[in-house]
Structures are given as structure tokens and as C-alpha cells.
């Protein structure tokens, strides 16, 4: 910044208030880099709206899923709390060692998901059972005093200083007389609890105790939730339990252990003398795979949300779940990322909203948007299939395109309305077949339907063959299931299909009355008799073939006829409605397809990136001088790349001096020195310093480390050569 001063010196410039940087909002990030700000804003709003809806849906879903476990847990807590007083009168209660009621809540290894569960649990507890709920995590409780401090602080809502550490931070408060803050021990909690209960009891009869449910307990329990039991140090936990057991007579304590692996961890962590102080009851939550299945069912396999994923993207998300983390939360995050990416990168995603709005938006298209529509591969295919006159119209007349757009969007919606019920039908029919030819889960079937024509696959044909062999009661039950699945569907086509299926079900029922008569008529010819006469192998084969022919042509029983008819209908439904979305014009509007982007973001490979950067600096730096043939490296590359390349040629231990010499040779070549001159490749101070810096950078990135095995050597930390 310029000054009017003539002398040299330091000048202070206060930032002018006008120029103060505006803190960018989320929206600004979204519209940044997009030329059309208005449409970007619109898309952002649609995206937000959709996400809010998805989010609230998943939340309610999760609540429902956990409800059963949490309800039984609450029941236990209530029971224990009300039993707290009774114990004193009962003989057995008096004699029994007073154990701390403990709920072991097995939640599975998907630790990131647990937070939601615990949040819900503690809210539920606070609403209906007790105001005194505290949850602790292992990482904040490395020592007993920290655990104690956290528990006290969170229940009592006051600052509990630990003697040593807080001294420095709160110098003024450490005057000995000023002892407002509680001591860090359970006895102070006990005193506090007695006071609180009294206050509580005095207050509640006067007011209506709506805030705490109907049945307010006289002694609400103090519930301590250990979120991740495995990560706690056993020593800390043991001591804490020992202390608590001393106060259980005065303080109705309760523990909830959040367990990720299996309940036997409790026995591994606590010796018998400690675990005998607990009265452990087990609660098992829903397995995460079931959880995911429900989430996919509600979010992906539904026509409710206009936003869709292609098979590949869904595959990426599901495989991250199954192979890596089992975390439903991460799956939903991935879905969110896909959603944002879709709305960010696809300008036409303005049409990806509910029908009415989409039609409106299409109406307001400007020329640029229309051009974009014309560029869509699916639209181009659509145009090609039209007759010549229509083609010309589509390519020249913007208004016509807008109209066609609206029509196509409506068609796409209809397609979805029919697709999902039929998908579910097919799944319910095939999911009980042996060996699951079309997959156990709906999502597997969905993915294969998204990718190709399902009826052309081998698996579909086997499934159909197996279906054609089903016995009557199984078939009728399966059809009944299908009909149930079709019933909620609203579209005309589905209603028709439902009608057809129901007709067949009644026909099957009627068959029962007919069948007894029919069976009588059927002639009983056993072909086995003829077989015995044939001795010649060729003859035998021939007869067998004939028999097969005759059996095929043989008159089928009425049941078989019906069965074939109904399955033909199913087959027809599949062929009509389960066509892959790629064939639908304008599908790009709703379908997010860049699985690569998603994979890069969700399942990053930091090591590969570093190696790419080091071995192909051009990839990141985009400097012409760095472009080389594959494998070799330009000698003008950054020092660290040269050093890295040279180190690949070494064994496990690298001699630093040899390395330095090699480096100097390479760098000298880059300087364009004459190879014959005497100081070519000589080590000067500058090169030495550059080399040292490069090596320490390489050490920082983690490819080499210093070693004590040999002087002047460093050890390689990666294996494999150039």
C-alpha cells in the first residue's frame, strides 16, 4: 500500500470498513464459478429443500428403528429406579449385595452411527425418566479424575476443578476462601443430589409436571452413559465402578455401556470382583446391514424423491458401506454429496424437482438452457427416433423443445411410478428362490435393473425357470405378496396389473374345486415300462429324447397352464417397466452418474496422490517443461521429485553420499552445463542444501527415515522399485 510519507518506516493501515470481507455463505460457494447465477441460486434452493426432506426422513426412520430397543431400555431404567426405595423393606433386597443396574447396549461396529442413537436415548431419558443423564466418551476420560470431573460437571452443571491443572487457568478463583465450586468426589454429588431431589419434590406437586411425563419418580436415577466402552482404560473403569458401588445406597446410579463388538468385552475388561458389582442386562440393537436396507428402501427405492442415483454410483456407496465402515451415517453423507454434486454440476437439474415446479421451470427456459437440453445424449437419441419433420422442429424451434421437455419430464415421472412397484414385485417373487439368482436384497436387483435389461440376463432366466416350478401354495402366497405391494401404487397401469394378478389368484383358488375332478381324468401312463426293454445305448437315448418331447407336448394340468400364464404376465410387466433409465429421454436431469468423483471424495487414496505427484509432477503442476515420456522424469522437475526418483533405485538402506552425487549429476544436466567440464556434477553448497531440503521433505512425507543401523544411511519405508 502506498503512503504519502517520504521517510522510511512502519506504517499501520487500518482496514477500511467498506472493504471488509464478507463471510461467504453456503450459497455463494454453490454459485461460485457458475456463469448463470440465477439458475444456480434456483438449483441451490431446490437442492436444500430436497436435502432437508431427506434428512428429516432419515431421522424419523432412525428413531423408529431404534424405538424398540430404546423402549425396553427405558423400561428397565424405570423399573430399577422405582425399585431403589423398595429394596430397603424387602428381606432379599436387604441381603443382596447392592449391584449397580447396568444396561449393555450392543450397537455394532459402526461407531459413527452411535452418536445419533445416544443423542436420541439421552433426550428420551430426559423427557420421560430423569433429568440426570450424562454421557461420557473415552477420549475425554484418560484418568479417573477426568472421568469423575466430567460426570460431576455435566450432572450438576457447575465447574468442577481438578486440583492441579486449573490452578494456572483460573488464578483469581484459587483463593482458598472462595470455594463455590464443588469438590471432585462422588460424595459432593450425593449431597447435591439430595438437595436437588428435595427441590424437585417441593416443586412438582404444585405445578403440573408435564415436562417430565406422567409418572415422576420420587428418586429419579442418575444415568451415566459410557458411549464407547472398548476405548475406556479398564483401570479407570474399574476404579470408577468401585467408587460408585460405595454410594449406591444413597444415590440411584445406573450405567449404560455402549458396546461396539460383543458383550463379552465386559468380562475381558472387568475382573470378577468388579463385574460382581454390576447387574448387567443386555440390549441388542438392529444390525447395521438391516438398517442400511431400510434406509435404501426409504430413500432410494421410492418415487418420492426426484433425485436418483445410477447403478454405478449406488454401487460405490454400498461398497464403501460393506467393505469399509458399516456406517449408515456415512452412507447418507455420501448421498448428500451426490445430491450437491448433481445440482452443482448439472445445470439442467432445475428440472429435478416436483412435477409442477419442473414444468414451470421448463417453461422459463432461456435459449442457453434449450441448447443444453439438445446436447443431452438421451435427448439426442430421442431426436434421432423422430421423423424428419419433427427432428427439424426439435433442432430449430425453442418453444417446441420446451413443450417436448415438459412432456418428457412427465413421462420420466410416470416411468418411476411404475418402475418401483414392479421392482418390488419381482424381488418379492425371487427373493425366496434357492440360491437367490437375483440377489437377496432389493438393492442388488435394483442395481442390475439400472445397468442393463434385466430380462436378458442369465440370472433372470434361471429365476424364471425356478418360478415355473413353484408349487401352488408357494406361488399363490408369492402372488398375494406381489398384489399387496402393488396395491399402494396409484398409476393406472399398476392398477391394471393388480387387477390381473388378483384375477389369477382367484382362479388359483377356484382350481382347488376343479382339480379333484381333473385329476381323475388324467391318464396314468408310466413310461418307465418301455425303458427296461431297451438295451442299446443309442436306442435308449432316442427314447429318452422322445419322452421329453412328448412330455413337453403333453397336455398340461390346469394349474400348470395358469402358472405359465401368470408368470408370462409378470415377465411382461418386467419387460415393460423395468427398462434401464438410460433409455429414458432426459434421464440426466434426475440421475447422478459420476461415480468416479464420488469415489475420489469419499474413499480418498492419499498415498497414491503423493506418489503421482512425485513421479509425474506434470499431473499436478501442468508445466510444459515437465511433460515427459512415461516412467522417466524430467531433470527440471522439483528437487523432491528427482530425489524420490533416485531413491526408488536403492535398496532398503540408502547411502546418503551416493544419493547426493547422483542428485548433483541430474541437476547439473538440468543446468545445461557441458558434460565434459571439470565441475560437472560437482557438489557445491547450493546443491547440497537443496538436496538436504529435498531429503527432509521426503522424510516428512514418510518415504525415508533416519536409521541407526549404519552411519550415513537412511532407511526406505516403502518397498518396490522403479
Amino acid at each position, binding site marked *: 500500500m502506498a503512503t504519502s510519507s517520504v521517510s522510511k518506516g512502519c506504517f499501520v493501515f487500518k482496514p477500511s470498513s467498506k472493504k471488509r470481507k464478507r463471510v461467504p455463505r453456503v450459497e455463494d460457494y454453490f454459485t461460485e464459478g457458475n456463469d448463470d447465477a440465477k439458475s444456480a441460486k434456483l438449483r441451490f434452493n431446490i437442492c436444500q429443500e430436497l436435502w432437508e426432506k431427506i434428512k428429516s426422513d432419515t431421522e424419523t426412520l432412525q428413531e423408529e428403528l431404534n424405538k424398540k430397543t430404546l423402549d425396553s431400555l427405558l423400561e428397565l431404567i424405570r423399573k430399577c429406579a422405582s425399585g431403589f426405595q423398595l429394596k430397603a423393606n424387602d428381606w432379599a433386597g436387604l441381603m*443382596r449385595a447392592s449391584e449397580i443396574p447396568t444396561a449393555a447396549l450392543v450397537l455394532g*461396529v459402526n*461407531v459413527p452411527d452411535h452418536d445419533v442413537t445416544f443423542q436420541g436415548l439421552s433426550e428420551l431419558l430426559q423427557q420421560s425418566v430423569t433429568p440426570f443423564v450424562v454421557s461420557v466418551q473415552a477420549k475425554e476420560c484418560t484418568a479417573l479424575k477426568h472421568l469423575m470431573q466430567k460426570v460431576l460437571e455435566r450432572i450438576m452443571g457447575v465447574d468442577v476443578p481438578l486440583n492441579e491443572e486449573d490452578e494456572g487457568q483460573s488464578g483469581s478463583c484459587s483463593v*482458598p476462601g472462595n470455594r463455590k465450586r464443588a469438590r471432585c468426589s462422588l460424595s459432593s454429588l450425593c449431597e447435591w443430589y439430595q438437595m436437588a431431589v428435595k427441590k424437585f419434590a417441593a416443586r412438582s406437586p404444585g405445578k403440573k409436571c408435564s415436562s417430565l411425563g406422567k409418572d415422576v419418580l420420587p428418586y429419579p436415577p442418575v444415568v451415566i452413559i459410557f458411549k464407547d466402552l472398548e476405548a475406556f482404560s479398564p483401570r479407570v473403569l474399574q476404579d470408577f465402578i468401585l467408587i460408585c458401588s460405595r454410594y449406591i445406597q444413597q444415590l440411584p446410579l445406573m450405567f449404560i455401556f455402549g458396546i461396539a463388538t460383543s458383550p463379552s468385552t465386559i468380562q475381558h475388561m472387568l475382573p470378577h470382583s468388579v463385574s460382581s458389582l454390576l447387574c*448387567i442386562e443386555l440390549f441388542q440393537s438392529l444390525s447395521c446391514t438391516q438398517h442400511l436396507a431400510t434406509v435404501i428402501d426409504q430413500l432410494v427405492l421410492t418415487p418420492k424423491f426426484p433425485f436418483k442415483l445410477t447403478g454405478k454410483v449406488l454401487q460405490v456407496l454400498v461398497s464403501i458401506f460393506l467393505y469399509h465402515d458399516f456406517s449408515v451415517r456415512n452412507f447418507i453423507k455420501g448421498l448428500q454429496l451426490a445430491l450437491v454434486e448433481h445440482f452443482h454440476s448439472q445445470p439442467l437439474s432445475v428440472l429435478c424437482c416436483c412435477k409442477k415446479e419442473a414444468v414451470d421451470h421448463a417453461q422459463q427456459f432461456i435459449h442457453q438452457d434449450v441448447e443444453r437440453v439438445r446436447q443431452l445424449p438421451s435427448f439426442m437419441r430421442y431426436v434421432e427416433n423422430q421423423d424428419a419433420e419433427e427432428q427439424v422442429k426439435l433442432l430449430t424451434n425453442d418453444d417446441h423443445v420446451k413443450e417436448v421437455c415438459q412432456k418428457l419430464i412427465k413421462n420420466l415421472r410416470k416411468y418411476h411410478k411404475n418402475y418401483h412397484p414392479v421392482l418390488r414385485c419381482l424381488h418379492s417373487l425371487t427373493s425366496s428362490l434357492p440360491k437367490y439368482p437375483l440377489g437377496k436384497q432389493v438393492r442388488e436387483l435394483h442395481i442390475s435393473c439400472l445397468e442393463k435389461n434385466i430380462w436378458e440376463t442369465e440370472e433372470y432366466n434361471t429365476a424364471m425357470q425356478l418360478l415355473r416350478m413353484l408349487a401352488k401354495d408357494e406361488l399363490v402366497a408369492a402372488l398375494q405378496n406381489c398384489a399387496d405391494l402393488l396395491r399402494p401404487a396409484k398409476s393406472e397401469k399398476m392398477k391394471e396389473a393388480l387387477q390381473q394378478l388378483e384375477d389369477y389368484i382367484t382362479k388359483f383358488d377356484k382350481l382347488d374345486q376343479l382339480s379333484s375332478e381333473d385329476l381323475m381324468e388324467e391318464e396314468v401312463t408310466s413310461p418307465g415300462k418301455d425303458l427296461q426293454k431297451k438295451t442299446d445305448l443309442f436306442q435308449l437315448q432316442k427314447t429318452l429324447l422322445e419322452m421329453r418331447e412328448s412330455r413337453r407336448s403333453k397336455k398340461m394340468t390346469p394349474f400348470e397352464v395358469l402358472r405359465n400364464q401368470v408368470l408370462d404376465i409378470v415377465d411382461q410387466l418386467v419387460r415393460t417397466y423395468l427398462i434401464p433409465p438410460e433409455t429414458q429421454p432426459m434421464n440426466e436431469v434426475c440421475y447422478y452418474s459420476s461415480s468416479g468423483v464420488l469415489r475420489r471424495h469419499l474413499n480418498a487414496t492419499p498415498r*497414491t496422490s503423493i506418489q503421482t505427484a512425485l513421479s509425474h509432477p506434470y499431473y499436478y503442476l501442468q508445466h510444459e517443461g515437465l511433460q515427459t515420456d512415461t516412467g522417466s522424469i524430467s531433470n527440471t522437475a522439483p528437487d523432491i521429485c528427482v530425489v524420490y526418483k533416485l531413491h526408488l533405485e536403492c535398496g532398503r538402506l540408502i547411502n546418503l553420499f551416493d544419493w547426493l552425487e547422483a542428485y548433483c549429476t541430474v541437476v547439473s544436466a538440468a543446468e545445461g552445463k557441458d558434460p565434459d567440464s571439470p565441475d560437472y556434477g560437482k557438489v557445491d553448497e547450493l546443491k547440497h542444501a537443496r538436496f538436504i531440503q529435498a531429503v527432509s521433505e521426503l522424510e516428512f512425507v*514418510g518415504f525415508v527415515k533416519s536409521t541407526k543401523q549404519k552411519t550415513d544411511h537412511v532407511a526406505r519405508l516403502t518397498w518396490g522399485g522403479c
Partner: protein
Amino acid sequence: MPLQLQHEGYSEEKLGLLAEKITCRETQASTLLALLGEPDHYTYPSIFIYGHHASGKSHVTECIMKELELPHVTVSCVECVSAGLLFEQVVMGLYGSEATALLPRSSSILDFVRVYKQLSSQEPSYQTRYIILDRAQLLRDMEANLLPGFLRLQELVDDNVTVIFLSEIVWDKFRPSTGCFEPVVLHFPDYNKGELHQILTLDSHPSYSPELYSSFINIMLGVFYSVCRDLRELRHLAALNFSKFCEPLERGEVKETDTHKLWKNIEPHLKKAMQTVYLREVSSVQWEEQQQKEEKEAGALKGLSAYAHVELPYYSKFLLIAAYLASYNPARTDRRFFLKHHGKLKKTNFMKKHEKTSNHLLGPKPFPLDRLLAIFYSVVDNRVAPTASVFSQISSLVTLQLLTQVGHDDQLDAPKYKCAVSLDFIQAIARTLSFDIVRYLYDFL
């Protein structure tokens, strides 16, 4: 009662009351009383009492203090997360809660001695004051000067005070290397069967005759005495099972005197209790609920250790398998298991002497991260990109305590791990992947 408590300092009446309360511990109590002397006598500075869990140490000391109305304070060391808290409790117990204000925050033993001196000069007492430190074994983990300081507290504060240590560990394990004042050591032996019976019979049920309860205790001890001598635990078990014992009486099928029938009724039940509720496989509440149900339904209850199965993501399973193989196979054998053309390997020639013992007997060995990954990549069928989540799975396996990290130096470059799961567990995991782990284990070659 063979041994009467006698002491000239206290009235007969009080001693009688005391003797009633401390069944089977008369010898120890009288020794202790002799040590304590009359109230105004200077007592030996420190007394160390040790004995197993539930052998009446605290009970006897506490009873003597209470019945004879001696000034005392009892502090459980497990509760004192810092020494300051311990001092605070002692001062509070002896001089009231106002006195604690004198102690500075984060006080050391020096502060404590100073404050104590000040307080004792303000409120002199002609009686001996007693400081009882329960679970004194934890004092060893606190500051080094704490234990020696308490041992000669009488000398330090120049007051008539005695510290009584209660511990489950013998005195030899306490003695600091720098030496210290030696306390008087008093041992409380375990109760024998007769004594246990005598004590347990004291809590007879009000609505049944003491004889019936005594016979019940007799039966129960017959079953449990061989595995458990912990009084507290036995009492708990007795309370849990007594209602079942009384069931035939309630129904009027058996008379109280018919001990054989009662025994027949309860014995299988107690045996089952030993396997479940005693080990805390089944909680006591569940056990009681189960007792109320019919016989047919019982047995459905599964213990805690029955749920050993753990769901893991696909790659985590393979990582765990790789970790197991790395932990239990010698590193030199990796060539043989994971290379295609490894040549023959004869076990006898190949092995070094120490490798002849089974690796499974020796327990898991630490292995570096790169060996784990090398085995992992050769075990997984398809190509796996070295993504961040593969590495984060290793650390989540550590937090789940399926792997443990070994050593503390060089955590960034070359961390070392150990596999902490059992063979059964890993076999169950391998089965879900249809991976034959036994074929890859050197011990089972």
C-alpha cells in the same frame, strides 16, 4: 463364646455389644483392642491390617470405632483421585467441614501436616484420633512421600494420632525402597467353612425359622464353598436362591424338617446358579425373573459370553485375519505361505529351537504395519486400492481392542501391533469369508 473381649479402658457393656457384632473375629478384635490401648494412651503410630476381600477388616475396625466412640475418620483411597482430596477428607472427618478451608488447593503432605498441627493445637483431644485408610494398596500409586508420611504421622504432627491401613495385599509389597517406619502388621485370615456358616446364618429370613435357614446355608455352602469363599458373594447368592428353596414349603408339599427333599429340590438349581449368576453371565434380576417362570421356559436365557459374534466390514475382517497370521506365524515363514513358488519347506529343519513350541502357547507377537499390509494384500482376492479408509480401519480395530498397539516410540513411521483375538474368534470370522485360516497357520502345518 470361647473368647471374651476384655479391656480395662472400656465398660463391660460396650465390649459386650461389640462382641455381638463381630462374630468369628474375636481374636483379631482383641489383639487390635490391646494395640489401641485405653482412649487417652498414645497408640502405636501406624497399624497395618491385611487379609482377603470380605474377611472383616473394615467391619471389625469400624465396629470398634463406633461402639467405643473413638474419634476417627475412614477414607477409601480408591475415591481419592488426588492426594489433596485425601487430605481434605481426613481433615473434614476429624475437624468438620469448615476446617478444610485451611487446606490450600492441590495440597501436598507438607500442607497437610501444617494444617493438622494448627488444628490439633486449636482443638486438643485427650483421646487418640484414628485415621483409617481403606484400600491402602492404592496409596502406592500416589505420590511417593504419601505412604511414609502417613506411617509416621504421629511423629510429624506431634499429636496423639494413629493411622490404620486396611489392605488386601501383604505389607512386603508396600515397603518403599528408601525404607520407612515399620507399622504393626495384623493379619485377618479367611473364614473357614464353619465360620462362614455361622455368619451367614445370622441373616435368617424373618418369616422362616432360623433352623431352616441354617440348613439352607449348609446346603448352599456344600455347593459353593469349593469355588467361592467370599462372604459378600455368598450372602448375595443365598438371598437370590432362598425363595426357590422355600417353594415346596409354600406349596405345602414338604415339611421344614424334611431336609433331604428340600436338598433334592434345590441342589440342581444351585449348580446352575454357579455356572450362570455367580459368574455374572446372567444378571441377578434376570435370574430372579427366570426363577418365577416355569421350568420349561427356563434355559432359554443366554449368558453374556454366548454373544461372541462380531459383525465387521469386509476389509476389516481380512485385516484382522492378516493381523492374526502376522502375530502367530514367524516372519520367515511368510514366503512359504504367501508366495506362489516357495519351494518345499520342511518343518523340522526349518525351525529354530525356540520355534518348536507352539506359537499359540506363547501368545501373539508384535508385527510392523508393513508386514500386516503385505499379508493383507496377498490374502484379499481382488485388488484393493490403498485408500485412507483401509488405514483408518486399522485404527478402528485398535479402538475396538481387536488389535493392540505395541510400544510408544516411532508411532508415525513404523507402528507395531499385536492381534488380540482368540483362535475361535478368528476362525468364526474366516468362516464367514470362506477362508481356510488353519491352512495358513504355521502351528497347524
